[in-house]
């Protein structure tokens, strides 16, 4: 019994470490390193604010539903100096917490599902915007770390008002 608890706790600590590292990479705009955290078919989703629980990206018009190729395109675009919305770049700062971990969930190949909460502040040209919501990371265990199969960022906001746009990686 005691050892089970210890394993679960250890797993959560490792997941937290992974999520905190990810947050640090994003805030530092180290997007290539961030992209390397994904599986080769890893994906990134932001559902529309009026359908936060949507999962079917064909039945519902998502704000972002990147397959790995589009996600790579997103990172490449942000690396150019013509992604105007992020030139000059926003300063972002994110706090990730309330981490919960489920392991060995289902048949689709997720080894671990991590649910967490985020608060992301974006500061740019005199304006501070706040994004809050929940992350869901569907992860595969690779060696002593993890690779992202799916990364969901589900916003609390009812509308992107006044935040307006998600030009950075949420």
């Amino acid at each position: 019994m005691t050892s089970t608890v210890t394993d679960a706790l250890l797993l959560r600590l490792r997941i937290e470490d992974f999520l905190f590292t990810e947050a640090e990479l994003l805030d530092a705009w180290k997007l290539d390193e961030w992209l390397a955290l994904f599986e080769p078919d890893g994906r990134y989703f932001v559902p529309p604010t009026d359908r936060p629980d949507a999962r079917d990206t064909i039945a519902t018009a998502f704000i972002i539903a990147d397959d790995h190729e589009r996600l790579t395109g997103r990172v490449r675009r942000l690396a150019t100096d013509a992604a105007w919305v992020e030139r000059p770049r926003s300063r972002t700062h994110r706090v990730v917490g309330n981490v919960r971990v489920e392991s060995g969930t289902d048949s689709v190949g997720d080894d671990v599902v991590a649910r967490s909460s985020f608060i992301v502040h974006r500061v740019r040209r005199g304006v501070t915007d706040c994004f809050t919501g929940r992350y869901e990371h569907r992860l595969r265990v690779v060696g002593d770390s993890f690779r992202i199969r799916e990364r969901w960022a589900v916003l609390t906001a009812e509308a992107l008002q006044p935040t307006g746009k998600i030009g950075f990686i949420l």
Partner: protein
Amino acid sequence: MTIDHSTEATNLTVRRTGRMVHDVPETGEFMVHRSAFTDGAVLERERRNILSRCWVYVGHASEIPNVGDYRTRSVVGRQVIFCRDRNDEVRVLLNTCRHRGALVCREPQGNDTTFTCFYHKWQYRNSGELIGVPGKISFPESFTLADNGLASASQVETYRDFVFASFDSSAPPLVEYLAGAADFIDRIADQGFRDGMEIVDGAHLYSMRCNWKLVVENSIDGYHGFPVHSTYFQYIGSRGVDLSVGLDGVPRDLGNGHACLDYLAPFARTVARTTAPMSDRAKQLITDIRAEADAALGEERAALVADRSKNIFVYPNLLIIDAASLQIRVLDPVATDYTNISAWLLAPRGEDRELRQIRSDSYQEFLGPGGFATPDDCEALETCQIGYQNIAEVEWNLVNKGYGVDAPEAVDNETQIRAFWRQWDSDMAGGPDGGTR
């Protein structure tokens, strides 16, 4: 010290005529005074002379398909209930209790035949009639249920499933108002030649920190496409889309302030244009649909409907972006420097899932708050708005590309933007009671 006499002269003109649009066809001068974007009095006048008098877009009939369906939303600053009553009639009711004002419907959407204000429980039918008032006996005799139904838009009309309302009972019939825009709405609606068009679930609700008219200009502007969206074109190019097509077409003045950009473009179009990255199955389906369009609409019409892209502006609050995918974009001016935007993906009803996926991918890649293009438009417009802080020294915008120039009309001219401004200027010059329309 040099004095710029030309600027001084035009400023005097503005002061004398009160006009914010300076239009001299002989010399090709066209300028818009920047106070049009910054002055609170201008927005108030726009609310009176334009937003309260024109036909404004409310929603698409497919959003409320069944009797009792409703959606609540803000339409040009008014809180409305967009619903279908028990006689299958589409209603645009003002969402405020006749008693002391509370919202009678507080859900974003649903299905109900009545709305009950929770404050003191007055109850209304979804056609507006007041049918229940608790403690009715203690109200004076002068108070009647019949006089106190929910207020409604003065007129509601539907054109090809696009529902419009006017808060002015003297507005002309919708079709007359739409003028040349009606034919372009047809070119959108006809894409549903099989079974009609529908709004896809999931709204993109966002905002820009800029004046609403900057969004109008930008949404039909062909001049900014390559400078602002080079990263988008690079991206679709990297996925194998042939960019040699370029953008080729013309801007159009559709009358009454409506305008559009009508062009051929390299984007995927699930009604007509296959692109290299598509699967063979998708290519075949699209080829079949395109052939069917010829049969259903006639070849000439099918080419206009299916092959050509069009960014359509229906004055004053609706944009239909039929470019990289098909988007309904609705503007709700909040402040001189802040605009709420609601956008929806529009598609043929019952579209094949793979094609819907392509439509949706194409939408997300260009459009919306997380796309590869719209956020850059936002940066352009927000920085224009900030630039207008220098209005004391730089008072005028130039909107004169292709004006009075002896050359064929081109996709990157500003003709369509001038058409918008002329109507705007004329409406703003009209008195509160008399119009120029």
